[in-house]
């Protein structure tokens, strides 16, 4: 499953699922890998062309702020995100493609909200009778 998600994320970017991804290069991210981090939301902007988020994280590296970016608000919406689903102060888990230079942060490919809602960005398939255009995603 993990391999699939990694492949998916790589495919999304390589294919340019969203033109938003063309807004600036994603070449700094390693989409062959999928990392996870849990932290407290200090800032979040879900806008176009990219979302941005800062998590306060405590792990073996210590306590620090980690910056992420991710899909457009349009893709967030279609993946199942809704306004106020993630609030400042929430404890959430993010899945992300790490930076190639191994500094903190990465490109968000999915997250689990404080209420346990699991959102995963997905690539459309022929089986999608309810396609991406305006239909809330299943939030898998």
């Amino acid at each position: 499953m993990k391999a699939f998600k990694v492949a998916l994320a790589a495919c999304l970017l390589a294919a340019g699922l969203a033109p938003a991804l063309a807004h600036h290069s994603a070449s700094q991210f390693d989409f062959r890998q999928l990392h996870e981090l849990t932290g407290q939301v200090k800032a979040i902007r879900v806008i176009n062309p990219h979302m941005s988020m800062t998590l306060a994280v405590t792990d073996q590296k210590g306590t620090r702020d980690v910056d992420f970016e991710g899909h457009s608000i349009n893709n967030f919406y279609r993946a199942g995100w809704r306004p106020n689903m993630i609030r400042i102060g929430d404890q959430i888990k993010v899945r992300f493609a790490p930076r190639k230079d191994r500094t903190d942060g990465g490109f968000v490919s999915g997250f689990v909200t404080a209420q346990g809602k699991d959102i995963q960005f997905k690539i459309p398939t022929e089986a999608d009778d309810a396609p991406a255009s305006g239909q809330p995603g299943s939030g898998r």
Partner: protein
Amino acid sequence: MISRHVGKRRVLGWRLLAPLVLAAGAGLGGAADASDSHPDLTGIWTLYVEAGKSAFTFNGVLPPLPFTAEGKRRVDEYRSLVGPDDNPGAHCLGSGMPESLTFSGAYPMEIIERPEQITVIYEAHNEVRRLYFGAKVIPEADRVPDRNGYSTARWEGDTLVVETGSLKEQEDQSYPHSDQAHITERYTQTTDARGHRVLVAQMTLTDPVFYTKPVVVQKKWRFDPKGILLPYECNEEAWLNRLDELRKKKAARTAATH
């Protein structure tokens, strides 16, 4: 009375009114599209995924393009200036034709069809194209060059034919072209094996400056009866960053005066 069939507008009312409208249109220098029957493309169209194929066939790699020496020289010059990590979208500039047509990713488009004008809204970058019929068409000399050009349209039976000129030179395109480029799009509607309405566009790009022969590309969409188009405000981040900057300056001034 207008009765709508699936994907097809039977303009019964139009038939009744046609003589009056045509007479009025003649006085305005030409009638609007007065075909008595043609496909109704109005609605939301989203990425079509071929059975058994990847959702994306582009994958960042285009087949070799038949550049002229001059076309290749201009593209090479552009690419020596702008690296692969930069592009117009990075600065919130829309794709322009033909990229707005061919590479709108998974974002959908909305078509709004009226007899005298078809409006195409690509969610990506909120790019809007207006395809004019009949009396709405202005003389070529009055058209302002644009990244999406100026488009006229006509129906050939059930095929929508769109002619686009007045394009700006754009080496930043996946299909780069000069301002001499001309694009013809032919839209036909079919139904796939699963019963989906499918819109097929065949795009032909000709450009004597850039290409030795026409470049032909096909693009497909699927009708999404429940779909909506979302806003796409690209500049919001820049403004929010500006506000942050102003707040920091204000805080610094306040701190300096205390």
